[in-house]
């Protein structure tokens, strides 16, 4: 399909907005972490440290400089890929984070690959046969999954599959993953737990978006042309529901990077979320900030992508 220059202008505008949002967020992240109680130097040196030693360490770490200057140099570092060094163990943060990020992305990728097709199919099908037993079944299922907290699902999964049935390892990390079977076993439980929650959200929102477009006069018009139910939904309703669906999917997926702390903790899965929580307990400010920025970037990327799909799928915006 032909895209006019104004389309790209619109896309460019959306990207600029995303970039500005990122700047504002980085500002907020930096100063919010500044507000955290406790002094890093004090914590690092312990209670017995003399005031002189604390002051010396503060100076050595550059903590005595004005906050705004530190913000600028931090931002400059981020832009060039230098995330700084951890206060606690003096390792490059990039090094600390990279392995964890790969783990998180791998988990998120597997969950996405399962959830998106399953949810879209179930959501669209439920909308197509609205009010049927199938639709009611899906609705009851999704509501129950949303209402059960994920730590409960995770704990039950461990209890059933690892303790009673002894089918799957209780921990995901540290087990031998050299064969495909072993890898599947290692990932099965965290993936199942996450999929429950994420799919339920996506199914509900997809169903709502499709139903909203089914109630429009142009879908009724398709009915009056003799179109079958599947044609009404797939050909007429779905293209117009694409924007809202993309947004719903993006919202659910963005949760997979940062919001999975409970799952990572229960299955002892070394992802970014767990790294950030550990960093908070040790007052490791550069690490906290970097993790927060990773979450923000992934969230923004997903939402911007969803907006672009909405723009490109709507001929009125595309003009």
């Amino acid at each position, binding site marked *: 399909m032909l895209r006019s220059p104004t389309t790209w202008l619109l896309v460019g505008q959306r990207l600029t907005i995303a970039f500005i949002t990122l700047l504002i967020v980085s500002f907020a992240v930096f100063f919010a972490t500044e507000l955290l109680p406790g002094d890093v130097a004090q914590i690092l040196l312990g209670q017995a440290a003399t005031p002189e030693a604390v002051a010396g360490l503060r100076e050595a770490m550059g903590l005595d400089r004005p906050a705004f200057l530190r913000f600028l140099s931090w931002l400059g570092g981020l832009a060039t890929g230098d995330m700084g060094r951890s206060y606690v163990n003096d390792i490059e943060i990039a090094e600390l984070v990279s392995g964890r990020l790969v783990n998180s992305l791998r988990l998120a990728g597997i969950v996405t690959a399962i959830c998106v097709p399953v949810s879209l199919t179930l959501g669209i099908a439920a909308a197509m046969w609205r009010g049927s037993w199938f639709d009611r079944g899906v609705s009851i299922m999704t509501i129950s999954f949303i209402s059960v907290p994920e730590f409960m699902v995770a704990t039950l999964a461990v209890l059933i599959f690892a303790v009673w049935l002894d089918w799957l390892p209780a921990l995901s990390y540290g087990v031998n993953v050299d064969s495909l079977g072993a890898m599947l076993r290692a990932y099965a439980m965290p993936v199942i737990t996450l999929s429950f929650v994420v799919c339920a959200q996506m199914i509900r929102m997809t169903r709502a978006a499709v139903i909203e477009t089914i109630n429009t*006069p142009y879908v009724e018009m398709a009915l009056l042309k003799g179109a079958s139910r599947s044609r009404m939904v797939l050909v007429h309703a779905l293209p117009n529901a694409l924007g809202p669906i993309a947004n719903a999917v993006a919202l659910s997926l963005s949760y997979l990077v940062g919001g999975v702390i409970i799952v990572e903790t229960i299955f002892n899965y070394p992802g970014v979320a767990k790294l950030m929580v550990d960093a908070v307990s040790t007052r490791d400010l550069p690490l906290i900030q970097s993790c927060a920025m990773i979450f923000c970037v992934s969230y923004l990327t997903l939402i911007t992508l969803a907006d672009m799909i909405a723009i490109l799928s*709507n001929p*009125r915006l595309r003009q």
Partner: protein
Amino acid sequence: MPTDPLVTVRDLRVGAITDASRKVEIIRGVDFDVAPGEIVALIGESGSGKTTIALSLMGHARPGCFISGGSVRVGDFDVTGLSERARRELRGTEVSYVPQSAAAAFNPAKRIIDQVVEVTKIHRLMPRAEAEERARELFRALALPEADSIGERYPHQVSGGQLQRLAAAMALVGDPQLVIFDEPTTALDVTTQIEVLRAFRSVMEKTGMAGVYVSHDLAVVAQIADRVIVLKNGEIQEVGATEQILTAPEHPYTKELMAAFEPVPHVPVEVPHSSPKPILEVEHLSAGYGGKPGAEPTYRILKDINFKLERGRNLGVIGESGSGKSTLARAVAGILQPYEGAVQLDGEELKPDLHERRKDHLRRLQIVFQLADTALNPAVPVGTILGRPLTFYHGMKGERRERRVIELLDMVQLPGALRHRLPGELSGGQKQRVNLARALAAEPELILCDEITSALDTVVGAAILELLKDLQKDLGLSYLFISHDLSTVEAICDDVLVMLNGEVVEALPAQKMSTEATHPYSKLLISSVPKLDTAWLSGLEQDPELVARFTNR
């Protein structure tokens, strides 16, 4: 020898489930026939069941409704007896549908041509190339511009009148026996309506298809239908040839409908204490949207408007959609701040911005909006809605306010007990009366009426006009009356301003609009209003160049 009818409807009953899950019958035993090639009109007010009956000919009932009894037969199909799957065979090929709002009935995400030929694809009637060729022929027959390429556009890229004709092409492409037209010109401007009606009529004559034409407008129906069925509350009141219904209606309800159509000439009201100053004077008023307030706006809507309204007189503002009528009311009321010009109320200059106006000025100039549904807070009872301006302008409280609310309801001919109800529990006409009573609560001298009868049925709208006249006599009000409906304006106004693209092109005395108009656009607009005469459209002669100049926006 009479031929067999194409459509036979016997004792048709349609039920509906209300919000309170109660079952009601909205179509109560309707019988009628349509002969092959005949065009039958279903006439009635909103809620009379005309669209419901028309849709039942395709075996379709809107969500919440269901066909509960009787039979519908179209050609060889027993529509009511078929399963939903079997009914699909009928839709688009045997019976097809032209919707009220083509703008809403076209899928915004798909090209027009794909939607027009979709019927042939669904029913596997012909190859795609042949279907497209047939569609282009229909585009030409319906007098659409650029017939070869218009299908490549998206629905939002063509005008409303064109889209309505494209919807007709979509209905005709499957070569049906019967076409249902559901108020297909109601949403159009009068000058556009003419070309659409002409196109429909000529294509129906050429193809010899039968039609069911649903409308509330007798004058439109007179131009296209052979027979008219008058409906009320889901029952047939009268059936007759179009000529007979127009000239010799028999049923009292048909007579009532005809009476509402007859313009009642307006008699100017004598105001005893006539002050020398006009109640409203507008000089060089310009306004628009976008940009900073007070500065020249990005989109200029009103350009240099000048007029005077004498006390006790009524000024009509007419024009088509987009002419700036409503913007004029908003600029005078101060809702939209004008960037140039002055508005004087009784010789006193009004501040451009509503928030800077004196309370007394606000009180004396009130505005009534078109849609009472959105203008009245749905969560607040009528008594509170009317009580607020009483407290704000007159400091009334408690029992005194209550008494005044009852008086106000009485003024608009509503029972006082209505004050305990919510707007949602009132009929359309009642809501518009409450809307008017709220303006009256301020005790104004001038009321801006923005299309206040447009959303109402003819009979209900006529009653509102009567009420406005009575109130004028009793309270010495003046009205600035905005409408796209010329006969309404004629019924209540002394003078008329004709607007086009944000400018006043001509000022005329209302009673002599048709004879004294000199500006070509006023003439075009006035001559485009359908008349209760079956020969009107055929005899109408309009300069095609003029039509092209003023309607191709």
